[in-house]
């Protein structure tokens, strides 16, 4: 691998870090500088002035905003995410198991969704404009119009209530056997798969079609290559980058899906944790979880960009 590529990759990562830093400012500003007093919010309207003052002091609310920001950022960088206001628990500890649960769920959803979406995308391209393609496009249109909870509750209604195949509430605990855990996440993982499947498939279809319509694919056909070899030798190497891009973008989309799906199935992950604490207006938790979500999202985007850089022959073999 040559140095211009490494330079580009390094640039992209640096840009990502810069972006994350900017996001941290945005999240901090969004929760601290906006109107409304956190102490007031916690204690409610009936709070006495003394207790308000005490809480402000305790939370460091009397310091200027930028000092509080650097204090917070310093904590985040050293793994100290602060304490939850509502429960007084250490946020990092609470997050650890939940993050693992969320990643476990998202992992299985991705494992099913990615190959399925690419296969369906390929089928749609193979039979393009035929009824299979139209059916797939129609379903994709429908499913992008469905709210996540519609898909979720339809699954619960049939699979958990009517047919009682899988549990409708996904209880998981530390040290749960793998089989039981899989049983528990079956429905949320399916819901999550359906949420991203349509998007991923439609974008894969577009990406492959784009490559298939290029002149070099025609050249390959005119050399007498079989349809399979045209795709394998000529279309595929050029389609990798756009497909990776599609996959990464949609994995990022999983993040949004996971929030709703976890609430539907009462699954103890990051999404539910976030929603709970937004309702409780527990600002430190919201900041920490928001930042983690943003970090995951930005990392996925960086991976997509790097894949595109590495797969580009113009960059791999400069003039």
């Amino acid at each position: 691998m040559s140095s211009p590529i490494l330079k580009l990759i390094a640039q992209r990562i640096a840009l990502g870090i810069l972006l994350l830093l900017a996001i941290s400012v945005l999240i901090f500003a969004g929760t601290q500088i906006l109107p409304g007093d956190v102490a007031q919010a916690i204690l409610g309207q009936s709070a006495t002035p003394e207790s308000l003052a005490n809480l402000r002091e305790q939370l460091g609310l009397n310091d200027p905003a930028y000092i509080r920001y650097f204090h917070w950022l310093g904590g985040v960088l050293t793994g100290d995410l602060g304490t939850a206001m509502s429960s007084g628990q250490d946020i990092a500890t609470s997050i650890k198991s939940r993050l693992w649960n969320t990643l476990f769920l998202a992992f299985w959803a991705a494992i099913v969704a990615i190959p399925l979406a690419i296969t369906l995308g390929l089928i749609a391209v193979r039979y393009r404009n035929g009824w299979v393609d139209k059916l797939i496009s129609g379903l994709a249109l429908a499913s992008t119009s469905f709210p996540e909870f519609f898909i979720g509750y339809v699954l619960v209604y049939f699979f958990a209530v009517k047919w009682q195949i899988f549990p409708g509430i996904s209880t998981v605990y530390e040290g749960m056997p793998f089989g039981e855990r899989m049983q528990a996440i079956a429905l949320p993982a399916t819901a999550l798969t359906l949420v991203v499947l349509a998007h991923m498939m439609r974008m894969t279809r577009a990406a492959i079609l784009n490559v298939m319509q290029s002149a070099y694919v025609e050249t390959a056909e005119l050399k007498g290559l079989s349809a399979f070899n045209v795709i394998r030798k000529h279309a595929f190497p050029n389609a990798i980058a756009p497909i990776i891009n599609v996959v990464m973008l949609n994995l990022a989309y999983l993040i949004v899906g996971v929030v709703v799906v976890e609430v539907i199935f009462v699954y103890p992950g990051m999404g539910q944790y976030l929603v709970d604490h937004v309702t409780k207006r527990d600002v430190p938790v919201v900041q920490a979880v928001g930042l983690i979500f943003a970090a995951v999202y930005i990392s996925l985007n960086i991976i997509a960009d790097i894949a595109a850089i590495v797969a580009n022959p113009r960059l791999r073999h400069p003039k």
Partner: protein
Amino acid sequence: MLDIKRIPIPALIGIVLTALFVLAALFAPWISPHDNAEIVGDVWEPISAAHWLGTDNLGRDLLSRMIYGARITLFIAVLATALSFSLGAILGFSAAVFGGWFDTILSRLVDLLMSIPTLIMGLVVLSVLPTNLVTLILVMGILDSTRVYRLSRAVAVDINVMDYVEAAKLRGEGSAWIIFREILPNALSPLISELGLRFIYAVLFLSTLSFLGLGVQPPDADWGGMVKENKDGIVFGIGAALIPAAAIAALAISVNLVADWVLNRTTSLKGGRG
């Protein structure tokens, strides 16, 4: 003029359904059989002649709640879309035509806002803001305007470098002619179809927020909120929560169908003649 026979069937279905939802929203007090908050029967009564969609978790008539829910859902979604659209399109066009630091600052800010999923940003902001309709519309509108901004800027930048715009500049036309007579008519069709998509997104986003308990607050309820109210019934095999959820899906699909058709129609460059 518009000939009904020439509208394709999917678009026709979309138009009819969308019109039904809009009519229900407009005339809610006159067509709903019961009042929004009136308790008319037992909890989660099944579908019957008296209650066409059954009753909800407090024994209120579900059909009436659905009709009033349409009103709130559409009202907020329309206002949020209008806000995101006017904000995004005006800033996007201006950025494209004026360029310079104005463009740079706005574009970087939008990049930043778009580097986190909208729902996450929305949740973060809603954790500190008071929960009321105005906040909701502002948050939804502003967060979503980033997408409109990107699109309208991109469209306008593309048009701005076309030879016919250059020809107008060479003729000595002013900015107003260039924006309103040269760029706008050609930017309209992608923007109109985007309008449909933004509206669908606003409906879905609002429903999601309400479902998570952060949107419309009780006793009022939009469709997302109604899913939340009735979701506990699902485990008992009561499908009340599925009805508002399905309504959201139906609304989104119908608007999608209409937007699709409008896009196809307006991209034809023969003034709608053949």
